[in-house]
């Protein structure tokens, strides 16, 4: 599974939405499924699947799929 497939799968599973709905523009609180509870599940799944530890600034900043990619990029995870 590529990194982008893994990322889409994590968002889809954590938020309980179809993979097709996981686009760069998808934002926190833009749909009922991505609320604070789902955000906590999402953070935990990202950390487990990509074997990273996010700090609180990153957890706060992770407000969209696009930003998530940028934050994971700081951990040398790329999505080319």
């Amino acid at each position, binding site marked *: 599974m590529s990194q982008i497939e893994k990322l889409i799968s994590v968002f889809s599973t954590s938020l309980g939405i179809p993979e097709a709905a996981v686009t760069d523009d998808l934002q926190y609180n833009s749909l009922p499924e991505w609320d*604070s509870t789902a955000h906590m599940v999402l953070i935990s799944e990202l950390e487990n699947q990509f074997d990273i530890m996010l700090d*609180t*600034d990153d957890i706060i900043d992770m407000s969209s799929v696009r930003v998530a990619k940028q934050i994971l990029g700081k951990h040398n995870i790329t999505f080319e």
Partner: protein
Amino acid sequence: MISVNALPSGIELAGYQVSLRPVEKADLNLLRNWRNQDEIRQHMVSQELISEEQQSAWYQKTTRDLTQRHFVIRYRNQSIGSANIRSLAPGCALTEASIIEPGLYIGDAKYRNNIVAFSPTLLLNDYCFYHLNCTKLVAKVMPENTAAINYNVKLGYKIINQDKLVEIELNKIDYEKSSRTLKSLLSRSPKT
């Protein structure tokens, strides 16, 4: 763990990446502009526009009032919103209060739909339960404000009455249970 510092102008709280400092005169224009925005005002019980004179009188009164405290929410060296706590028993100082009503809004639109919006609430709730030793927090929310109701329910609040306003309340045990994970995410150490 939150920090509580006594300043000449009141109490400053810090934790979960944000701080709450006492409202100062220099904050009044910003606070009034936020409070008079439609997006904020529509969720208030009193929806009238606040004039400079009304606000000035309010400021004079509240700075001497031991039954309430008003704060500016600060995040990354910027003011992003307003928070307050008040004792529900008439004339009862906050330090003696068993029931406290907290309130807040995020004025900076950039942070309204962001997980950091939970931080000032966690900070206020910790201060009320662990420093002021109150037993219960209560709030009244407009029924249309489902975002605020959902937000508070996630923090452990229970709906106790639904009429023209939705009355909600939170005890310490429910708060501790409901906020544990959120607190752990919002209080991780910054990268060194």
